[in-house]
């Protein structure tokens, strides 16, 4: 009988033709999904040529979207996107999301139903860990890895140790998945999960929407993790049902599986969190944070710019106005989220509040464009990293928080507690749910839309 294994070990074993694997082993893993964007893919295309391979191993297992610098911010990025486009056509890749249909890849892939439980997925981007929320093994790689993956359909991995996080209780009013993951990273440190998988369990996780789960797994890399993972459940199945008809395999961790460490967390005692400059692990409860004045509030990124995030921000901004002197920037994660936010009237709220709204892009999260910071500027952001220089000038300061906290801070002009801007607990259940990212013609009447269906 195979040894007791974690979800991650089971997925890796199943993809290298073995009954079992154990942490520390190097295994060659077959890949089910390879996601490509314009920054790390063009170098990989050149590298494929270096080993004499002109065609990808299987164009149906590849998804492509430009996301980092869209629309092109300068001549060089135009060349990168152009090369990506040329290559997609040459390779006959059908799952290609061009400008207007594009999105930040880690948000677009779930929205389109491309990632399924039990899959192995890679992308030349560190936040690929996001996709683990579906009970898949998903990890970020570099361009050489990407070249090897595209050419051969497989890649070497060291089987990671697993850290288990049992999150019991219920997140209080005004406290979100982002607050939970910032809290967790404040406990592990930015390298506490180095080389490990972060596996999440508990009532606080199972109660979460897929979107919130994506936020949690997104930031595994901020603790040094190779991947984040959750067991697929009813919420996962419901989300996938309307997005795909593909079959999938659900893996669960065995009762006797070995964990490197187990963290017990009570979600019900958490408060809104803010990570101070310049490490994501500098998280503090909002009550302990000096309410310093801000120059910019940024709502965007693969971490927190899905429709639920924008709704939370809009609830706070409704009938209010951004404080004088504050630049408030809203960057939906995908074109689908953008269109949905428009339909729901969220853009009216943001625009009336004095925000600017961008097309979907990684944008200023990585100091690319659409809100790069100058020397000494202070920004509160829904993004994932606040490293020195991450969003622009090395002397700019970035505070990380949830969309609600960022929205409240934009209104206040300084770091603010979102609960001060919420009159009563928000309706959570039975609210109208919507399917994002599905073509207009495929849509059912509005009443039938179910979020996360």
């Amino acid at each position, binding site marked *: 009988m195979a040894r007791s294994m974690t979800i991650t070990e089971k997925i890796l074993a199943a993809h290298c033709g073995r009954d079992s694997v154990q942490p520390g082993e190097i295994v060659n893993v077959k890949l089910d999904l390879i996601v490509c964007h314009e*920054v790390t893919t063009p170098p990989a295309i050149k590298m494929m040529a270096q*080993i004499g391979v002109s065609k990808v191993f299987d164009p149906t297992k590849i998804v492509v979207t430009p996301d980092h610098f869209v629309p092109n911010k300068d001549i060089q990025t135009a060349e990168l996107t152009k090369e990506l486009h040329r290559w997609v056509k040459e390779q006959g890749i059908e799952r290609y999301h061009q400008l207007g249909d594009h999105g930040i890849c880690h948000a677009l892939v779930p929205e389109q139903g491309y990632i399924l439980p039990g899959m192995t997925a890679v992308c030349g981007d560190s936040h690929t860990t996001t996709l683990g929320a579906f009970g898949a093994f998903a990890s970020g790689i570099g361009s050489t890895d990407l070249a*090897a993956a595209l050419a*051969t359909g497989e890649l070497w991995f060291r089987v990671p140790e697993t850290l288990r996080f049992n999150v019991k209780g219920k997140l209080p009013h005004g406290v979100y998945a982002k607050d939970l993951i910032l809290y967790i990273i404040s406990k592990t440190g930015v390298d506490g999960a180095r080389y490990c998988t972060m596996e999440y369990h508990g009532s606080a996780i199972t109660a979460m929407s897929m979107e919130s789960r994506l936020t949690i797994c997104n930031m595994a890399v901020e603790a040094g993790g190779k991947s984040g993972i959750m067991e697929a459940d009813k919420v996962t199945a419901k989300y996938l049902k309307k997005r795909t008809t593909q079959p999938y395999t659900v893996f669960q961790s065995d009762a006797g599986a070995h964990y490197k460490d187990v963290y017990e967390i009570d979600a019900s005692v958490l408060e809104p969190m803010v990570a101070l400059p310049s490490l994501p692990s500098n998280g503090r409860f909002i009550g302990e944070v000096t309410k310093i004045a801000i120059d910019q509030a940024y709502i965007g990124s693969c971490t927190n710019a899905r429709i639920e995030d924008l709704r939370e921000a809009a609830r706070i901004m409704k009938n209010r106005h951004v404080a004088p002197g504050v630049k408030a920037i809203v960057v939906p994660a995908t074109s689908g989220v953008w269109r949905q936010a428009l339909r729901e009237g969220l853009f009216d709220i943001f625009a009336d509040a004095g925000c600017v709204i961008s097309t979907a892009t990684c944008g200023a999260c990585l100091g690319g464009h659409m809100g790069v910071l100058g020397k000494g500027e202070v920004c509160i952001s829904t993004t994932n990293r606040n*490293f020195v220089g*991450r969003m622009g000038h090395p002397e700019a300061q970035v505070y990380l928080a949830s969309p609600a906290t960022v929205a409240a801070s934009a209104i206040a002009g300084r770091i603010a507690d979102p609960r001060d801007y919420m009159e009563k607990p928000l309706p959570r259940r039975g609210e109208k749910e919507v399917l994002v990212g599905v073509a207009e013609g495929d849509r059912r009447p509005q009443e039938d839309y179910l979020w996360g269906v």
Partner: protein
Amino acid sequence: MGSVMRGRAHVYSRAHINTDEIIPARYLNTHDHAELAKHAMEDIDPEFVSRVQPGDFVVAGEDFGCGSSREHAVWALRSAGIQCVIAANYARIFFRNSLNNGFLAVECPGIVDKITSGDEIEVDLEKGTIRNVTRGTEEAFLPLTPFVKEMLAAGGLLPYIARRHGLEYTPAPPVPRLDVKLSQLMPAGR
């Protein structure tokens, strides 16, 4: 890569030096190695590129290279002339990218206390040692695993894969050195 490497150290003793410091994202609009090299370590040490000499070492604390997956960080350091990084330990994607490029990244806990910037360093791959020639001290680095050795010996992931799949590997054209002017590359008289 010879088995003994010698050069001067550039020490960054802080933990968690991230890829935004090694190569800021504002330069990710290119993957031209020589261009990236001009901005290596720019946000942590703007003078780095003017000091670095071919064959030098970067010596760092824990979790070196954390943050994004950009391989540009490895290319920038290597193309600036760095032949090897020595750190207490590494963020996984940086480590992976290094090995995949056949670029040596060795782990040696506590190394930042044993080396000062400017010290002459000798790394012996066979013996597994880091000798501080200036101070006359010697440390052992963590042994490389057989898989890592095999990939480094092949020259990185692409040649390693080429061998496994019976393909021919063509190395990329050499990266021009930072201080070589175009005029110097032109044959005389043109």
